[in-house]
């Protein structure tokens, strides 16, 4: 059987066990017939196939039927409310405006009196965001002007038609409903389904759009009768959505004058800079298990973060559309499609209109709840978003090291052999992972009695090497009355219900499965308790967790997921679909914290995610393939996630489906070594690919890549500490640090780690060289391997061999490394540091050093950490305590200091504890590198090194 078919069998149709059900067999067959290497697009909806998207998208820009009723204005300290009326159907909406701390404006629109409550997304915001006072500057019949406090910023509410404009001085930063695409489908009672009445109903379905629509329909000759089905029922393929609440979608448009570059709204396998969607499909946000996803298109993938960043040389802003239902995002631009020549012509003729990007969000249910983050700097937007949804969880140090995974390591002996393989070939490794085959018949929290009869023995063996393991725990639960987990969930009534009130059942790896209702806090608490050592048999403290299939993936469901009319307590699955994966990871991470009595930091990997998922662990880009384009796309995919708070991101090294060529595998290791979550993974049907299976030369190259990662772990750890404290991304697009340099705005084949490391991995087959853009006029960059200095603001051609990983350190930075690379990160705990001081042209540099125990919450609860600032100014390198109230001691010391771009001193002295000692040094004149030999101070100490 050919590989494609096998893959298909293995993953999507998963499994001919389904034969038992005729219907499903049909599904299998149809999937097999449609077997192509890439995704079967027919399995997933286009906007046109999603009734609400089709209805909403049919609405064209024009005069909005919404009007603000200024006399309903109510203003408390921090909250302004106002009613809106749709002049076409007289439905009243309630507009709420808040000014939030940190230059954020919140706009909420709900029905004034909905027939029943509409869903408002819980558990994503860190709490009620702190507000600041709003004041009305002026008010007349046409509208009102509010002060936003900061920098002459005002919010203008126009009454007729309703629109909002945020101004700074004379400039409009952002407008809402300026194109009149606000559309709010109010809850209604179902009428009889006679033809004419249905027609009448249809006319009303998009609030406020009737007139335009009628006109357009007349103009275009499009009938408005049966085309508008899907209000009270909708069928896709063989699946019918019963839609008991009828049409409930919401939509709003945003205009961004002066903006040509927008980013974010992951997860899509697309370029970093978002494309315009005119004439094509909108970007879709709907968590789906997409088998063999295609690249460079706006199809939905496993996760969704409804946050978009808009950037120009003056300002960065963000739009956070807090809605967990199926969402589509349209982007259009008045400059898109214009050639460079055309733009120049506009410029020369002076006829150029301001470039503008227009964005439209459409969601199937819930309310409109938007946070407008006004920047102005990229870092401000990150801070603002972090203040709403929290920051990246601080992973245990080992989580940033190398992970070895495969579907599947066959048995305990296999695990042992792989562990030994790393030692034999002297390649560091922190984690070995177990996929679904480790379980007893895909019953999570259990072990296959034949292959893994002694899990604790195995885990102890791994622990003796100071390594760790991860076992998969998916949220689908085998319906089997002999399975404890199933029985408990059923008995406690914790399963998601189908529309008729029974336990919802769907097919996944184990066959017929139930799906716990993770939106229920009691369910989550129970789930967390299952990770206790006495509940999860065979688990130990060095066993961590991987949540896969949590979109949720349902093999026989519509679009391989759950029916939208399935029921979670008071809400439909439709309302909170995109939130399911976040809840699964939340409950699992909580379980890991609880099992240690609250002391140990968790490590949980998830495939599905939502805004706020950064608080619970790591994310990977799902089931990619062993192709060069998939290696390339890993960069924009993780960059996009980083922009919206999720820093701990990675792609399967080597590619999940198919088998990589040796060259591709080596290049992927080199790239992955410089991406946040560094895990190799492979499909069941692919040949083994542990890093030593490709000849001694390639083993050596891979070893070197992994060793570079381990040497840099102190820097990675410090970056994640920062991300945890501040919400700044770890893996950054260049424009984040060089926001005024337009060259950087579209770069997504290279990236920064923190501020100070620039990586341009080799992602082309047979490459002899790469051209990296080094940003920063007047800045310098140092090749980290040769210490060669290069000027900023230039395209630099770098010849490469198979062992090259082009990496540069920014002049002006100090990076700590641990160059004594060992078997695992834990083995390196007490090792000394080497400081790499890269001088700027002004001969200054600064950096930080963060140290703690690497795995507990003591850094938080007991302030047990060392956080130092390192500065080089006036030929003096100084270490200062950034947090005097912290306390932690370590054996680690500083064994070496390299100063790049230095000149030769006559003498070097160390000042510490009031004493001065002379230091030995060496100077390499060819590269201007000064090496201080064994200064020896403890990393926690205050000291100054003086060059004379």
């Amino acid at each position: 059987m050919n590989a494609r078919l096998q893959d298909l069998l293995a993953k999507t149709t998963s499994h001919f066990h389904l034969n038992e059900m005729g219907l499903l067999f049909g599904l299998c067959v149809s999937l097999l017939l449609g077997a192509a290497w890439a995704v079967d697009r027919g399995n997933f909806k286009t906007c046109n196939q999603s009734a609400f998207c089709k209805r909403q998208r049919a609405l064209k820009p024009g005069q909005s039927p919404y009007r603000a009723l200024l006399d309903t204005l109510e203003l408390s300290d921090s909250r302004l409310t106002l009613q809106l009326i749709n002049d076409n159907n007289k439905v009243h909406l309630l507009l709420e405006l808040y000014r939030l701390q940190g230059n954020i404006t919140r706009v909420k629109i709900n029905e004034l009196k909905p027939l029943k409550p509409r869903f408002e997304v819980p558990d994503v915001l860190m709490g009620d965001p702190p507000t600041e006072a709003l004041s009305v500057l002026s008010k007349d019949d046409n509208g009102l002007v509010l002060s936003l406090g900061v920098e002459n910023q005002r919010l203008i509410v126009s009454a007729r038609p309703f629109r909002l404009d945020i101004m700074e001085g004379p400039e409009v930063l952002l407008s809402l409903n300026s194109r009149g695409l606000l559309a709010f489908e109010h809850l209604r009672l179902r009428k009889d389904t006679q033809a004419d009445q249905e027609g009448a109903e249809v006319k009303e379905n998009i609030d406020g759009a009737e007139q335009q629509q009628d006109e357009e329909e007349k103009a275009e000759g499009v009938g408005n009768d049966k085309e508008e089905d899907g209000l009270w029922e909708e069928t896709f393929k063989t699946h019918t959505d019963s839609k008991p609440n009828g049409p409930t979608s919401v939509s709003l448009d945003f205009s961004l004058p002066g903006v040509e570059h927008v980013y974010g709204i992951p997860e899509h396998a697309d370029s970093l800079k978002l494309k315009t969607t005119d004439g094509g499909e909108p970007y879709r946000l709907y968590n789906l298990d997409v088998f063999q996803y295609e690249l460079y298109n706006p199809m939905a993938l496993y996760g969704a973060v409804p946050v978009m960043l808009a950037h120009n040389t003056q300002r960065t802003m963000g739009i956070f559309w807090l809605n967990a239902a199926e969402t589509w995002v349209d982007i259009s631009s008045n400059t898109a499609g214009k050639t460079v020549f055309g733009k120049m012509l506009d410029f020369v003729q002076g006829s150029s209109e301001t470039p503008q990007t227009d964005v439209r969000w459409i969601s199937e249910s819930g309310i409109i709840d938007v946070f407008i983050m006004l920047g102005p700097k990229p870092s401000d937007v990150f801070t603002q978003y972090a203040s709403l949804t929290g920051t990246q969880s601080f992973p245990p140090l080992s989580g940033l090291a190398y992970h070895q995974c495969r579907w599947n390591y066959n048995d305990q002996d296999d695990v042992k052999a792989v562990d030994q393989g790393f030692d034999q070939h002297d390649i560091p490794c922190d984690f070995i992972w177990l996929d679904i085959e480790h379980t007893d018949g895909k019953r999570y929290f259990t072990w296959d009695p034949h292959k893994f009869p002694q899990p604790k023995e195995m885990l102890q063996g791994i622990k003796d090497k100071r390594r760790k393991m991860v076992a998969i725990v998916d949220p689908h639960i085998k319906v089997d009355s002999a399975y404890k987990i199933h029985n408990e969930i059923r008995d406690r009534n914790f399963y998601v219900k189908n529309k008729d009130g029974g336990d919802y059942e769907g097919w996944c790896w184990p066959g017929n499965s139930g799906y716990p209702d993770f939106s229920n806090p009691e369910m989550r608490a129970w789930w967390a308790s299952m990770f206790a050592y006495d509940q999860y048999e065979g688990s130990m403290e060095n066993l961590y967790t991987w949540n896969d299939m949590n979109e949720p993936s349902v093999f026989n469901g519509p679009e391989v997921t759950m029916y939208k009319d399935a029921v979670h307590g008071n809400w439909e699955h439709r309302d909170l679909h995109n939130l399911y994966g976040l809840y699964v990871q939340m409950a699992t991470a909580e379980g890991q914290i609880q099992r240690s009595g609250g002391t140990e930091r968790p490590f949980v990997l998830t495939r599905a995610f939502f805004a706020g998922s950064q608080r619970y662990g790591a994310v990977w880009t799902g089931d990619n393939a062993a192709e060069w384009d998939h290696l390339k796309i890993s960069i924009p995919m993780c960059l996009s996630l980083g922009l919206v708070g999720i820093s701990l991101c990675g792609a399967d090294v080597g590619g999940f489906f198919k088998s990589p060529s040796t060259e591709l595998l080596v290049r992927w290791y080199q790239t992955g070594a410089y991406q946040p979550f560094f895990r190799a993974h492979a499909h069941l049907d692919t040949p083994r690919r542990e890093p030593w299976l490709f000849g001694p030369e390639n083993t050596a190259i891979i070893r070197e890549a992994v060793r570079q990662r381990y040497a840099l772990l102190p820097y990675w750890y410090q970056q994640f500490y920062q991300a945890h404290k501040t919400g700044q991304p770890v893996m950054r697009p260049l424009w984040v640090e060089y926001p005024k340099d337009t060259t950087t705005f579209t770069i997504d084949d290279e990236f920064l780690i923190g501020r100070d490391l620039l990586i341009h991995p080799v992602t082309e087959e047979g490459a002899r060289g790469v051209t990296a853009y080094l940003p920063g006029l007047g800045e310098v960059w140092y090749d980290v391997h040769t210490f060669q200095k290069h000027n900023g603001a230039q395209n630099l051609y770098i010849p490469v061999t198979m062992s090259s990983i082009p990496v540069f350190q920014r002049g002006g930075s100090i990076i700590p490394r641990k160059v004594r690379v060992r078997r695992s990160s834990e083995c390196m705990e007490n090792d000394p540091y080497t400081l790499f001081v890269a001088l700027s042209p002004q001969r200054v540099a600064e950096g930080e050093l963060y140290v703690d125990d690497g795995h507990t919450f003591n850094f938080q609860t007991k302030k047990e950490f060392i956080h130092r600032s390192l500065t080089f100014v006036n030929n003096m390198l100084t270490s200062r305590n950034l947090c005097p109230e912290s306390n932690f001691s370590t054996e680690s010391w500083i064994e070496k200091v390299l100063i790049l771009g230095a000149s030769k001193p006559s003498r070097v002295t160390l000042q510490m504890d009031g004493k001065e000692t002379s230091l030995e040094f060496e100077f390499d004149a060819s590269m201007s590198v000064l090496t201080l030999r064994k200064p020896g101070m403890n990393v926690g100490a205050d000291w100054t090194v003086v060059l004379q």
Partner: protein
Amino acid sequence: MELHFQLVLAFLLLSPCFIQTRRIRGVSMSYRRLYRERKSFLCMDGSRLIPFVQVNDDYCDCTDGSDEPGTAACPNGRFYCMNLGFRPHYIPSSRVNDGICDCCDGSDEFSSRMQCPDKCRMLGQKERRELEETMKAVNKGLLLKKQLIEEGALVWQEKQEQLKQLQKMAEDLKIKLEDHRRRKLKAEAEKEHLQKAVMPDPNSVEGQGERPGQAPHGGRPRVDQGSVFHSREKEGKAEIQEQHDPANTSPHENPVIREAQSAVDSAVAELQKVEEAHDSVQMEISELQEKLENDYGPEREFVFLLSRCVQMTVSEYMYTLCPFSQVTQKNSAGLEVMLGKWSGWLGPPDSPYRQMKYDEGEACWQGPKRSTLSQG
């Protein structure tokens, strides 16, 4: 001042032995002379001369790592585990003081929190015990090998015997074959002669073509019968009597011709039988010869396998391996699939008899032909 001086003195007195143990840590006996305390130390790659105090001072000075044999300072260094009582060996210096016991004498964790007990004596004993066991097993194996060679020799002898027998049979059959060929020719000649006698004008080519070896024409004079009788007289009474039976005397069924014809028929039949027998014996001979030409090892130690098949059941499949012949797989439904015929040995050069290859099996669906590797 006095006290200070005393301390310095004490330090000077104590330090040599301290230095001694520190300096030589991680160095094997044979290299120890290179680490003798001198003023300076030359990196082993000759790249650098460093003060001797920098040897094993936990800072890497030599690019080859030779100045830090006893610490983890150099990325490319190696540490020598003395392992008294067991086998000494090198470990990468990254395993020095990493919290994991690597040397059985525990010497690699001299300054870590890990307490590594000295297990070398125990391991040495265990290894010696195992070695003894292995020797026993080897001896046992050698004995078994001898037995198997003997057994194989018997099989070999048997097969040789069989071959000889077959060859003799073949020779006999060959003689017989020639004899039968002669007889057939003779019978045919006689028949021809008779036919000419009965019908001197053998014009009808058609008839002869139609029924070769049978009397094609009628109207033969009775006179000729006598001559046939005569010529056949010596051959046997039964035939003679038959010849005398005048039951059918139509010109087409001349009894004399008929008799001659049946003589030809039986001669042909006899010849065919003998030919078949000869062919099958020849085939067996060549099969056997092929088998005997196989490589059975330098001492023909694998000959004994010739007469054996082994079976193994893996889940629903039963595999049957008949060495030097074929491998088959039978599923629980009884469907048998041939996985390959003997192709040859395929072990690595140092032990070629480790692995057998069977190929040219039944083809996979839309795929290559099945083949089997059997590993010993």
